[in-house]
C-alpha cells in the first residue's frame, strides 16, 4: 500500500514537472516571436505593417469589398452549418454513416435555441394517442439526459419533458466528441462557395478572420437558411413572433398564505428546484432585420425587468428574482426553403404517406396524427449539394409552428445528415441520392419512418 502510494506520488511529481517543461517551452517559443514578457499571458504573434492589405474601400459614397483569396480551414465530406438540435443530430448521423464531418456553430455552445434560447420545454415528440415519433439520435440525446442527475424532468410517455440547458450542452459535447466530428465554434457562416448551381463549401467569419471550409455536401442547419439563401436557392422570407425567454428563481420560497391572487406569467418548472422558465412570444416581426432584432432585445429586456418588479410587489412573491434572460433571442421562423417537395397541412390532415419518407413529425400536445416528412422537403428545387435541416425546410406557412419544434428538428437533422453522408460517399448530388439507402441507414440508426 505504502509502496503504491509512493509510486503514484512519484508519477504526479513527474507529470507536474513535465507540464512545467511544456509551459516553459511554449513561453520560450513565444518570447522568440514577440518582445513582451510576463507569466500570465504570452505573445503569439506581433503585427507588422502589411503591404498587401485588401480592405473594403469607401469610394464615391459606396463601400467596395475587393476580391481576395481566403484560407481554407478544413476540407470535409459533410459540412454542417449550425449547432442547434438539427445540426448536432445531422453531424452525428453523418459521422455514424461513415462520412468525414465538420460542424460549425456561431456561438460557443451546442443546442441553439434549445439551450441558448432557453426553450426548455420539449414540445412535439408525440402524435395523437401519445405515440412518440421522434426516435433515433434525438431520442438518444433524451436518454442520455435521463441518465444525468437533474438534467430532465417529466420524461413520461405522452408528456412533454423539460430539460436543463447546461445538461443539454454537456450531452451534446459528449456525443459530438464520441462520434468524432470536427468542430469549429464561434464561426459564423456568411457565404456559400458556389460553382454554377453547386455549393462547394462555406465561408466563415470568426476571430480568426474570414476562412473557408470546402465540402462535398453542406447541411444548412442555420435555422435561417443562411447557406441556401446565399447560394441562390429559392426561399420564402416570413415574419413570426420574436420573443425572449427568461428564468426566474426562488419560486420555492413563495409565501402562499397572503390572500392576493397569484401573479401571471410565472412560467413552468425546470429541473432546477425553485427555478421556472418563462416563455415570451413577442410581436410578429422580421427576424432577419438587424435593427428589428436590436429593438426586440432591448424592448423585451425592459419588459421582463418591469414585469419581475411587478411580480415582486405581489404579497408572498417578494423573493422571486430574475435569474437570467436567454442569451439568444427567440426567433421562430425567417427563411423557408422552396424544396422539391413541401410539407403541407393538407398532407398532415390526410395522413399522406411518401415513398421518400425520411422522418415522421409530431405536434405540440399530440394534437395531430403523425405526418410524414418527404426527403424532397430538404432538397432545394435548383441549387445542388446543400440540404436543409431544422425549421427552414420546405414547408407551407401553416406548418411552420410544427416544423420548428425541437423534436421535429432532430428528425429533419437526422435525415439530412444521413442523406448528406450517402451523397458524399456515392459521389452524387443530393437530389440523385438513393433514398432507399438513406432510409435503410436511418432505420439502422433507429429513426422512426412510419
Amino acid at each position, binding site marked *: 500500500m505504502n509502496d503504491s502510494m509512493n509510486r503514484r506520488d512519484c508519477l504526479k511529481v513527474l507529470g507536474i514537472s513535465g507540464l512545467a517543461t511544456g509551459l516553459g517551452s511554449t513561453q520560450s517559443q513565444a518570447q522568440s516571436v514577440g518582445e513582451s514578457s510576463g507569466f500570465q499571458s504570452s505573445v503569439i504573434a506581433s503585427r507588422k505593417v502589411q503591404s498587401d492589405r485588401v480592405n473594403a474601400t469607401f469610394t464615391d459614397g459606396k463601400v467596395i469589398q475587393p476580391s481576395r483569396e481566403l484560407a481554407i480551414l478544413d476540407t470535409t465530406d459533410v459540412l454542417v452549418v449550425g449547432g442547434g438540435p438539427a445540426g448536432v443530430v445531422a453531424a452525428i448521423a453523418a459521422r455514424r454513416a461513415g462520412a468525414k464531418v465538420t460542424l460549425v456553430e456561431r456561438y460557443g455552445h451546442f443546442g441553439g435555441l434549445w439551450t441558448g434560447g432557453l426553450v426548455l*420545454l420539449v*414540445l412535439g415528440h408525440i402524435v395523437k394517442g401519445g405515440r412518440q415519433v421522434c426516435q433515433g439520435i434525438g431520442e438518444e440525446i433524451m436518454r442520455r439526459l435521463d441518465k444525468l442527475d437533474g438534467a430532465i424532468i417529466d420524461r413520461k410517455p405522452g408528456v412533454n419533458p423539460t430539460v436543463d440547458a447546461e445538461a443539454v450542452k454537456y450531452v451534446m459535447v459528449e456525443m459530438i466528441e464520441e462520434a468524432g466530428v470536427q468542430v469549429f465554434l464561434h464561426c459564423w457562416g456568411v457565404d456559400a462557395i458556389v460553382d454554377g448551381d453547386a455549393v462547394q463549401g462555406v465561408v466563415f467569419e470568426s476571430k480568426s478572420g474570414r476562412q473557408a471550409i470546402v465540402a462535398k455536401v453542406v447541411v444548412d442547419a442555420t435555422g435561417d437558411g443562411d447557406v441556401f439563401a446565399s447560394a441562390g436557392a429559392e426561399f420564402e422570407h416570413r415574419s413570426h*413572433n420574436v*420573443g425572449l425567454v427568461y428564468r426566474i428563481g426562488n419560486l420555492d420560497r413563495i409565501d402562499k398564505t397572503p390572500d392576493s391572487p397569484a401573479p*401571471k*406569467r410565472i412560467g413552468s418548472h425546470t429541473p432546477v428546484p425553485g427555478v421556472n422558465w*418563462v*416563455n*415570451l*412570444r*413577442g*410581436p*410578429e416581426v422580421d427576424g432577419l432585420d438587424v435593427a428589428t432584432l436590436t429593438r426586440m432585445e432591448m424592448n423585451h429586456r425592459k*419588459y421582463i425587468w418591469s*414585469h419581475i418588479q411587478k411580480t415582486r410587489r405581489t404579497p408572498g412573491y417578494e423573493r422571486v428574482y430574475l435569474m437570467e434572460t436567454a442569451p439568444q433571442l427567440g426567433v421562430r421562423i425567417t427563411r423557408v426553403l422552396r424544396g422539391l417537395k413541401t410539407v403541407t*397541412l393538407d398532407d398532415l390532415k390526410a395522413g399522406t404517406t411518401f415513398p421518400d419518407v425520411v422522418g415522421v413529425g409530431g405536434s*405540440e*400536445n399530440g*394534437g395531430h396524427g403523425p405526418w410524414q416528412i418527404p426527403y424532397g422537403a430538404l432538397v432545394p428545387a435548383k441549387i445542388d449539394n446543400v440540404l436543409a435541416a431544422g425549421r427552414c425546410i420546405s414547408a407551407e406557412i*401553416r406548418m411552420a*409552428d*410544427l416544423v420548428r419544434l425541437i423534436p421535429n428538428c432532430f428528425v429533419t437533422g437526422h435525415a439530412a445528415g444521413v442523406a448528406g453522408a450517402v451523397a458524399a460517399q456515392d459521389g452524387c448530388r443530393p437530389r440523385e441520392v438513393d433514398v432507399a439507402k438513406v432510409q435503410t441507414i436511418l432505420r439502422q440508426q433507429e429513426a422512426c419512418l412510419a
Partner: protein
Amino acid sequence: MRHARPEIAPDRKRGRLRLLVRSACLLAAVAALWPLAPGVNSSLWVPALSPFVALAGAIATRELQAVAWLGMVVGVVVLVKRRFFCRWVCPMGFCLDGAGSLGHRLGRRSVHVPLLGQWIVLLTLGGACLGYPLLLWLDPLAIFTGVFSLGERHLGCAAWLGATGFAAVLAVNIAWPNVWCGRICPLGAFQDLLHSGSRSLRFVPGRKSEGESRLSRRAVLGVAAGAGSAGIVGLVHSDKRRPLRPPNAREESQFVGLCTRCGNCLRSCPTGVIERDLGGHGWASLLTPVLSFREGYCREDCVRCTEVCPSGAIVCLPTRNKASVRIGLPRVDMNVCLLAEDRECSACARWCPYDAIRYVFSEEQYALQPQIDPDKCMGCGACEAACPTKPHKAIVVLPA
C-alpha cells in the same frame, strides 16, 4: 268508427300479397335507414314519404322544397285510395300490427279514444300557418326513423332517447291494440282528412252530410287553436338560449317546430358533431339537433345534413355555397387561452379552414391574443375542436 280497423283484408290471397308488400316495404325502409347503407342520402326517403310532413313543411316555410315531392305523390295517391299508405306501405304500421296482435294475445282490448289524430293534424297545420307546425314530431315515419339513432357511433343517452318515441308507440299499441294507427297517428288522420276533403269537393255543397259539417267545424276550430298556440310559442320563445344549429338551419323559432326529430342529420354527419338537445335549451328544443365541436368540426366540404332533412328544417345547401353559410362565431376566453401565459400554441389558427384567425401582439399585455376575422369565419368549430385546453376550451363557437 269505420277508420278504426282499416287493416282487415277481403280475402286470404289478398292478405298474403299485402303481407308480402308490407314486408318488402319494411325491409326497404330498414335498408334505406341503416347507417351502413351505401345509398347516398337514402335515409331521406323514409321520413320524406309523409304527405303530412310535406304539407305542413310547405305551409310553414311558404315554399315547396325539392324533398316534398315524395310526400306529395303519396298524398295524391291517398286522395283516391283512402289509407292506402297505411295498408300497403307504412313500415311503422306493420310493426304496430305485430305489437297489436301481441297485445291481443296478452288479452289486451282496444279502448275507445277520441280521434286525437285529427286534432294533431289540425293543430299542426294551424301552427304551420304561423310558421310553427306544433306537433310535426308525432309523424310516425319520423318516429320510425328515430329508431336508427341506435346505429349512431356514440351510443349515448341521446341515441336511446331518439328511439324512445318508437318504443312508446309500440308500448301503447300493445297495451291498447291498434289505438295508435286508428285514433292517434297524425299521418293516418291526415290521410282520412285528405280523402274526405276530396270527397266533399266532389259533391254538391248543399248535400253535406252531418259528419262532414262536423269535420269542417272541427277543422276551423283545430286550425285556429293551432295558430293560436303557435302565436303564443312565438311570443314566449326567446332567442337567448338559442343553441348552435346545423348549417343552413332555419330561424330558431321555426326550426324547433319544423324539426321532426327523425335524427337523419345526426346520422349523416361524418364528423359526428350533431347531437340531440337533451333539454339544455328549453322544452321546445328537446331532441332537436344541436352542434358540439368538442371532438370534431363542421367540414367545409360537407352538406350532408342539409340533404337528408325531410321537413326542410335544415335547408338543402349546394356544396359550393357551404363556405358562405355562417353557423356561429367563436369567442375566446383569455383566462383559459394558452397564449395569455405565452405558451407555444397555434392550434386554432392552424386548423381554421377559412384562415380567419390571426395572433395579434398587444403591447399592453405584452402577449399574443387570437383575433377572429368575422368576415372570414363561418363558425365551423375547427378552432374549438383543436383547442387543447381542458376542461374548458379557450375558444368556443357561439350562435352568431
